[in-house]
C-alpha cells in the first residue's frame, strides 16, 4: 500500500517540511548554522537526551535545516521520514549498519554504481558483511541467493551502466516472502519519475548530489524509510530494532515505535556514532535545487529523448542503451514502471573503439568531461579511458561496456546546442577513423 500524498509533487517539492520561520517570518528555509542548541534548563536537556521530548540537541544528530530536507524527500517519496547524510554512500552505509552487523549478508544487483559496488564487494567484507551479486533481472537468482543470514535486498532503480530497470514489484515480493526489506537506490529517477516505496520497496537511498540538487555544488545523501516493514514479524532477524539497546537507555526501538523503529535506531546510533551527517549549508543548497526538481526532470527527459533519437540515426553509432528504445531488454518494464521517462542518463557505443571514444570526448564543448551525473549541465565520460581504463576488452564487455561506450548525463541546455555538440564530436570521430 502506498502513502496518500497531501499535495502534488511539485507543491511538495516547494513546501513540504517547511513553514515560514515564526520569529522572523522568512519565506526561504533558514540555514541553521549551529552545532548545538541551548537547553531551557537541566530538566529540558535530560528529556531531549532521553527521547522524551522532540527537538534538537546537536547538529550531528539533527538540525532544523536538514530536517526540512528530510521531511521534504519523505513527503515526495511517500516515506514516514528520512535522514540526511554526508553523501549517498553515507546513506547506504547507514541503512546497512542499522540492519546488520558482522555475519550479515546482502543480495544486491550486479548493475550498481561503482562506489556502491566497492562498498559491498571490498570494504564491507572486512567487517564481516558479505554480498552476493545477481543480475538485476534474474528473479530466480535473487531468490536462490538468499541465505538464512540475509538481511537486505538492494538494487538501483535504473542500473549502471546498462540502464537495467529494476523490477521493484517482483523484488518486493521476493523480499516479502523472505521477510527481508528491499532497499532501492533511486538516484537516477528521483521521486518525480518513480517512487520505489509505492511499488513495494521498504527503504530508499538517494545521492542528493545528483538530480535532487541538480547544480553540482553540494554532496549529500538521503535515506528514506517507508515504514512498511514489520521488523517484529521477521523471526528475530533484526535484533538491532527489536531488542533493548544498551547504547541508548535500553530502548527497544520497535516497542517504542513499530512504524519508525528503523529511523529511530539509524539516527540514535548510526548518525550519533558514525557521524556522517550533512552540513546544513549543503542541505540548504539541495533544498534550493529540489524546488525546481519537477521542471528539471521533465527537461532532462525531453533532452535525453531528443539526443537518443538523433544518435540512433548516426552511422558511427553502433548502439544506444536507453530503456525507452524498443531494442532495450527492459523496454516493457520501463513503460510499466517509468511511464514519465527514464531520466537523463544513457550510454551509447561508438564504432572504432577507444580511439573513437577518446576523440569524441575531447571534441565536446558543451558537455563537460567529468565523472558525475545529474547536473543541470550536460556531462560526458568515456569509461574505457577513465573509470574503467585498467580493464581488458573482455572485462569491459562482461561489465556491459565496450571500448567505444560513452555515458552521457543530459543537462538542461538548449537541445539544439547539445545536438550540435554531439555532431561536432562525431565529425571528429569520423576524421580519426578515416
Amino acid at each position: 500500500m502506498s502513502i496518500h500524498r497531501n499535495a502534488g509533487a511539485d507543491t511538495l517539492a516547494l513546501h513540504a517540511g517547511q513553514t515560514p520561520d515564526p520569529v522572523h517570518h522568512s519565506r526561504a528555509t533558514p540555514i541553521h548554522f549551529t552545532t548545538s542548541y541551548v537547553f531551557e534548563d537541566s530538566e529540558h536537556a535530560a528529556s531531549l537526551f532521553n527521547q522524551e521530548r522532540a527537538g534538537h540537541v546537536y547538529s550531528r544528530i539533527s538540525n532544523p535545516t536538514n530536517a526540512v530536507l528530510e521531511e521534504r524527500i519523505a513527503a515526495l517519496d511517500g516515506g514516514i521520514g528520512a535522514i540526511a547524510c554526508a553523501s549517498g554512500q553515507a546513506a547506504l552505509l547507514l541503512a546497512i549498519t542499522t540492519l546488520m552487523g558482522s555475519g550479515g549478508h546482502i543480495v544486491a544487483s550486479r548493475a550498481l554504481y561503482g562506489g556502491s559496488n566497492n562498498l559491498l564487494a571490498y570494504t564491507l567484507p572486512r567487517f564481516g558483511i558479505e554480498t552476493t551479486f545477481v543480475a538485476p533481472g534474474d528473479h530466480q537468482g535473487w531468490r536462490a541467493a538468499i541465505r538464512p543470514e540475509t538481511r537486505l535486498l538492494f538494487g538501483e532503480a535504473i542500473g549502471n551502466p546498462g540502464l537495467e530497470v529494476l523490477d521493484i514489484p517482483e523484488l518486493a515480493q521476493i523480499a516479502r516472502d523472505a521477510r527481508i526489506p528491499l532497499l532501492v537506490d533511486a538516484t537516477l529517477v528521483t521521486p518525480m519519475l518513480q517512487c520505489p516505496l509505492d511499488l513495494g520497496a521498504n527503504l530508499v537511498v538517494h545521492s542528493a548530489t545528483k538530480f535532487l540538487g541538480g547544480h553540482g555544488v553540494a554532496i549529500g545523501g538521503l535515506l528514506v524509510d517507508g515504514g512498511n516493514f514489520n521488523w517484529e514479524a521477521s523471526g528475530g532477524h533484526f535484533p538491532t530494532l527489536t531488542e533493548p539497546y544498551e547504547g541508548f537507555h535500553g530502548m527497544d526501538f520497535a516497542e517504542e515505535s513499530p512504524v519508525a523503529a528503523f529511523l529511530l535506531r539509524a539516527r540514535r546510533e548510526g548518525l550519533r556514532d558514525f557521524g556522517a551527517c550533512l552540513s546544513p549549508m549543503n542541505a540548504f543548497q539541495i533544498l534550493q535545487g529540489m524546488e525546481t526538481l519537477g521542471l528539471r526532470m521533465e527537461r532532462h527527459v525531453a533532452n535525453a529523448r531528443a539526443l537518443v533519437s538523433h544518435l540512433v540515426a548516426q552511422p558511427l553509432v553502433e548502439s544506444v542503451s536507453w530503456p525507452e528504445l524498443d531494442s532495450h531488454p527492459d523496454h516493457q518494464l520501463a513503460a510499466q514502471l517509468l511511464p514519465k521517462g527514464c531520466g537523463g542518463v544513457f550510454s551509447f557505443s561508438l564504432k572504432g573503439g577507444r580511439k573513437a571514444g577518446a576523440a569524441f570526448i575531447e571534441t565536446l564543448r558543451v558537455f563537460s568531461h567529468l565523472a558525475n551525473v545529474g547536473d543541470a549541465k550536460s556531462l560526458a565520460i568515456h569509461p574505457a579511458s577513465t573509470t574503467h581504463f585498467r580493464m581488458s576488452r573482455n572485462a569491459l564487455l562482461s561489465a556491459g561496456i565496450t571500448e567505444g561506450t560513452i555515458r552521457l548525463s543530459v543537462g538542461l541546455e538548449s537541445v539544439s546546442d547539445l545536438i550540435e555538440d554531439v555532431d561536432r564530436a562525431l565529425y571528429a570521430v569520423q576524421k580519426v577513423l578515416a
Partner: protein
Amino acid sequence: MRLNLSGHLTDHITFCYTGGQRLERDRPTALFIHGAGHDHSVWTLQTRYFAHHGWNVIAPDLPGHGRTNGPALESIEGLAQWILALAHKLGTEHPVVIGHSMGALIALQVAATAPVLVSRLALVGAVAPMPVAPALLDATLSNRDKAHALINQWSFAPHSQTGASSIPGMNLTALNERLMQRQAPGVLHTDMAACNAYAAGFDAAARVRCPTLLLSSAQDRMTPPKAIAPLAAAFDKDIPLTRVVLPDAGHAMMSEAPSQVLDALWAFVNSSHATGQPPT
C-alpha cells in the same frame, strides 16, 4: 510488557508499553489509552517522560490493535470493562487515566464506572457524543485508503499537512497512515462504529468524581473545541474541570505538538485539587 488477561473479556495476550521501566508499587500510575486505528506508540514521547519521572506507565494496545491479539471490541463500554480488567490484573491503584479520541471515551467510561478507582481523568481530543461522518464510517468498510486519507485530512492542522514536523525528519501524516495500515482489516471500522454508537457520554461525565482535564486543539476538525462545551457542561459542578486549548495543533496533537501535550498533562497531574485521589 506482555500479560494474559485470561477470563477478562478476551483470552488473549495483551501488550502494555511501560516506557521501558518496571512497574513499582510505590509509584503513581498513569494509564494511557490510544484512539481508533492506533496503538500505544501514539503516546511515545509523553509516556517516556512519565516513565522516567517517577511514574508507572501503562499504555496498552487495545484488543486487536498493535501487539494485542484477539478481535477488536465493539463498544466503548466493553473497552472500558477491558481496561478495568487490565487495571485489576496489574493491581493498579488510583491511576490517572488519560485517553485520546476513542481512548478518551473509554477513559470517561472507566472513570464513570469506577469513580473510586480513578484519581484523575484527562480527555485529549474528546467530544461526546462523538458522531463519525457517514462518509468516513463507510470508507472504513469499503475503502481503507480513503478512510486513512480522510482521517489525516481532518486530524492534522493545515500547517501540519505539509509543513514542518515537530519531530525532526518525520513525515507525521505518513507515519499516522502507516500505523493505521498496520491494524487488521475491520479494526478501524469497529473502532469508529463504537465511537459513533456511544450515547452514554453525558451520563458518564455526570458520574465522574475526580479532577478532569479537557485538552483540545484549536485546529482539530475531528473533535472541534467548540463541540466540547456540552460535554464540559455535563460534569458535576463540584468536579474541578480544567480546559486547555492548544492553538497550533489538530486532532493528532500528541505528534503535532508533543511537548505542549506533555506540559498540559504534566501540569494537570501535578496540580493540587480539592477533590480526587492525589497522584502521589
